[in-house]
């Protein structure tokens, strides 16, 4: 257990190092960074874009963006994987909304998102918020939890979410807002 925790800390340190050196325009560090993170970021692009070719194009843009912006990464403010994954998610959402693609059904062949929280020893981002979110989500009503998870993982708006879950828009907003309010209460406890 402590061995694997040490290994995780080590992996995180390598990632911080690769990202910081990428910010110094170190090309070999950038290649390391790609090797360490591209599968995670492609998973994000694929799920949100919903098709392989688009996901590949968005992944390309994501790494070009990372190369340009890595100099602005501040290790004390965010874990590297959060910083990178956020760029990927935002880019993929931008792409889909620019295409005007409405997604009222989940994509078929994406691997399912696991329900369980990962072990603290295995997480790449144990620095922030001390892992509370998973436990707090488990405390919500199923329909609130599902809506919040779908919004995050599929990058959908309220309108798409309501259509997908087959409930009126106002009802969906109400579920989500109450769910988020409970979540905040739990997180601040």
């Amino acid at each position, binding site marked *: 257990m402590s061995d694997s925790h040490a290994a995780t800390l080590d992996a995180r340190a390598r990632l911080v190092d690769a990202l910081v050196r990428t910010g110094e325009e170190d090309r070999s560090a950038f290649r390391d960074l790609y090797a360490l993170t591209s599968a995670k970021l492609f*998973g*994000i692009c694929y799920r949100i874009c919903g098709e*392989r070719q688009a996901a590949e194009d968005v992944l*390309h843009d994501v790494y070009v963006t990372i190369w340009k912006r890595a100099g602005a990464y501040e290790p004390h403010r965010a874990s590297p994987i959060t910083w990178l*994954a956020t760029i990927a998610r935002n880019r993929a959402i931008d792409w889909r909304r620019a295409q005007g693609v409405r997604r009222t059904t989940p994509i078929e062949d994406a691997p399912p998102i696991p329900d369980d929280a990962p072990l603290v020893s295995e997480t790449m981002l144990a620095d922030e918020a001390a892992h509370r979110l998973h436990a707090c989500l488990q405390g919500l*009503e199923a329909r609130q939890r599902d809506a919040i998870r779908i919004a995050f993982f599929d990058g959908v*708006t309220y309108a798409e979410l309501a259509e997908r879950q087959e409930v009126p828009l106002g009802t969906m907003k109400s579920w989500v807002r109450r769910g988020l309010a409970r*979540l905040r209460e739990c997180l601040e406890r």
Partner: protein
Amino acid sequence: MPGAMSDDQTPGEAPDMAAAELALGLLDGEERAQALRRVLAEHGFAQEVERWRRHLAQLFDLWPAITPPPGVLERVEWTIDGPAAMQVETRAGRRWFWPVAAALSSVAAAALLLVIVLHPFDHGAPPQARPTAPAAAPETILVASIDPVEKGLPVTAVYDPAAATLRLTAAPLGDAKRSAELWVIAGDGVPHSLGLLHDAGVTALTVAPANRARLAAGATLAVSLEPVGGSPTGLPTGPVVAKGALSRV
């Protein structure tokens, strides 16, 4: 949660969760615009959005990884290094048509000359029953005028698919410190090395099997300046000094 109170039956009384909604990406249209204005106007609101982002980032841990297809990193690096060179074929392809067409008369003349030199009467069979089917197309000789980016004379390239040979006229593009390396950029947008060019005299290259299909009408040929002996990375590392598109004679 089975025992949870059902407290969400009255839509009108839902709490204001705009910061979380913005962080999740749920909002669009006017609602999103309004939330973005609040980020700018209210410091507390901006901090709350940031707090939500940090909380929600925990979920990235659950996101299943999928290995991307090969070649993406190469394309990323190519974009970083030489966006202009990569887009010749795709985006600017049409704009290049007229200059290339104008150059073609001289290219065609040079090509004809080379074809004659390369194939001195080796077709013994009489030209009866000449096939007109498009199946004959892959065997068509292709030519390109590889024009220097700055100034100088174009390098003429002639590709003979039947023999998998590529012949180029003298290419005084390299010098004592740098080699001129020839690349083909086809449908995948990635440059593939075809070999080094001689400064003086004709260069004759035998095209590797993997590159043969890439040499088709519309593909770009580009020359970059590399360390002596060619690029150490397998991709162009130096400036592109000449380029042109392959076309049928």
